[in-house]
């Protein structure tokens, strides 16, 4: 059952909802369980809790990272050194939002920037940092302007600065602009980019918690992850976690869901964690354009393997967490980090791309491979060469010039990338490629046999007008 909530989005659509006045007024007025006005949560945390208490509370919120990998936020915070040594600690907030199909963080920055800033204050205190850098992709000029205005307002009130809320723990938040490189969303690449270098990912270990930006202990979290923190701490982390349908398996709270592609209504909404794909497509997205059936869905950004509605859950063993959905369509399984892993894909960013029947899946894959070819940073040969080769071969299939042997090549190229690269961009390219090739084998073969032609292929349901 879909459960709409309005914590992160409560300022959306309000007059100047991005201003401090709206953020503070709004919270005090509405019947939110925490009952605390804007920045009252940060005040309470800084003046009443120790660092350890903050990290413990953060763990109880069961906030799985909203950037795509789904790592538990509180656990990540606990990796930071317990005491601050000679090297200062840093918070880096990932607002690069470059994963194709993802359009949620932008709404927070534009429409509720103060939640992002308040989240930074609590997170900085919890991880022992005095400085947060919010890394925003350069194209999002309005997002940057709203964040910067919010930071100024918060500083003027004394919520940021040398003694936030009177506490002797200086906190500053800075916006750092990217310069047009998808790979800078990868956390270690982002660290290099902040340092003023080429955004090339680093080998791990060392992990950012030990040696992050400027060689200092660093926590990298997605912007939505951080923006959820004031809400979680305001109502109590456990209560927050329990809002989720998947609280029982450690996937807590509420989050933003985006729907795009062939739906009647492209939107971003806030829901309790755990809606199904069918609920997102029909209840939130208003159904498929032209009332067509669904060919497939990219569940959480282009790096997550596609799912087809005909796929069913195979979990006959009662002890398996997915057993309650055994035999049902994967489109009826609540979306969660572990449930999606269980059906062979990834939850990713919770922004789903819906692709209607009649669309050409080979062209879809070619479009995405063009993206990966363009965005590979080029450090690792399997990724640099493999992404280009995948794109070239898929184009060849589309042009009707590929052989059956080259369809096998596609598998081999993708498998050759997996596990052989510095960063997860490699898997993010290879996994969706493999899914397209395997799940649409028939269409690929039709091209090879000349039964499908590029000239007849379409990507749109409704002609653009």
């Amino acid at each position, binding site marked *: 059952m879909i459960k709409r909530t309005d914590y992160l989005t409560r300022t959306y659509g309000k007059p100047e909802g991005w201003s401090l006045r709206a953020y503070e007024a709004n919270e005090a007025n509405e019947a939110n369980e925490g009952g605390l006005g804007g920045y009252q949560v940060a005040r309470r945390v800084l003046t009443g809790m120790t660092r350890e208490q903050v990290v413990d509370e953060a763990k109880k919120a069961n906030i799985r990272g909203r950037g795509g990998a789904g790592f538990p936020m509180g656990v990540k915070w606990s990796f930071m050194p317990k005491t601050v040594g000679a090297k*200062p600690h840093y918070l880096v907030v990932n607002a690069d*939002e*470059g*994963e*194709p*199909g*993802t*359009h949620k*963080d*932008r709404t927070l920055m534009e429409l509720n920037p103060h939640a992002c800033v308040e989240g930074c204050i609590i997170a900085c205190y919890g991880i022992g940092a005095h*400085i947060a850098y919010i890394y925003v*992709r*350069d*194209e*999002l000029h*309005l997002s940057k302007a709203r964040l910067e205005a919010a930071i100024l307002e918060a500083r003027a009130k004394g919520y940021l600065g040398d003694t936030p809320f009177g506490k002797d723990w200086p906190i*500053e938040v800075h916006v*750092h*602009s*990217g*310069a*047009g*490189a*998808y790979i800078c969303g990868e956390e270690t690449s982002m660290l290099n*980019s*902040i*340092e*003023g*270098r*080429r*955004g090339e990912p680093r080998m791990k270990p060392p992990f950012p918690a030990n040696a992050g930006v*400027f060689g200092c202990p660093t926590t990298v979290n997605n912007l939505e992850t951080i923006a959820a923190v004031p809400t979680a701490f305001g109502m109590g982390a456990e209560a927050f976690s329990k809002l989720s349908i998947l609280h029982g398996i450690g996937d807590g709270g509420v989050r933003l869901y*985006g*729907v*795009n*592609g*062939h739906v009647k209504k*492209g*939107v*971003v909404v806030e829901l309790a964690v755990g809606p199904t794909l069918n609920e997102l497509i029909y209840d939130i997205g208003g159904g498929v354009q032209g009332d067509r059936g669904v060919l497939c869905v*990219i569940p959480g950004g*282009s790096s997550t393997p596609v799912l087809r509605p005909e796929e069913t859950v195979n979990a006959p063993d009662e002890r398996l967490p997915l057993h309650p959905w055994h035999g049902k369509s994967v489109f009826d399984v609540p979306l969660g980090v572990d449930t999606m892993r269980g059906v062979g894909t990834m939850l990713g960013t919770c*922004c789903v*791309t819906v*692709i209607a029947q009649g*669309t050409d899946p080979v062209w*879809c894959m070619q*479009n*995405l491979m063009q*993206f990966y070819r*363009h*965005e590979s*940073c080029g450090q690792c040969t399997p990724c640099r060469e493999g992404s280009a080769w995948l794109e070239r071969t898929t184009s060849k299939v589309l042009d009707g010039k590929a052989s059956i042997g080259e369809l096998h090549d596609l598998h081999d190229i993708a498998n050759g990338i997996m596990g052989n690269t510095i960063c997860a961009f490699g898997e993010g390219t290879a996994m969706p490629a493999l899914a397209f090739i395997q799940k649409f084998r028939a269409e690929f073969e039709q091209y090879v046999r000349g039964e499908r032609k590029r000239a007849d292929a379409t*990507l*749109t*349901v*409704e*002609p*653009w*007008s």
Partner: protein
Amino acid sequence: MPFALSPERERKLQEILERYPTKMAATLPLLHLCQEQAGFVGDDVVEYVAHRLDLSPAHVKGVVTFYTLYNQEPVGKHQVWVCRTLPCALRGAYQVIEHCEKRLGIHCGETTPDGKVTLRTAECLASCGTAPMMQVDRDYHENLTREGVDQILNRLLES
């Protein structure tokens, strides 16, 4: 004349330098400031940034060539980027691109002969829910219609 920041941007640079423990960290922000002023990042700007931040020109050049939003050549007065990635393509991005090319009489990657508009494709700009979309200079235009695109392009050409 060698490149130098305007006084207002010079003040911004001083603010920026205070945010980081190293000078090198100001590389990206300073390059943005320079490009705002000069329109593109030529060799004079590379030399200038290297000098101001105590870096080698090779380091700065390496950064400039890595990131797509630093123009290494002069560009038109206005920048139009049409998103071409799948979610936008599912809602007509290729038709938007074709339409822009026709209206402007140029291909993607080119600038109109009068130097007014540079047309390029972009990869996902985080507006997939309101596709198709294009970015014009600093502004996003979403849920594009044919009529809307015509209005935007006319405004740019008349500017």
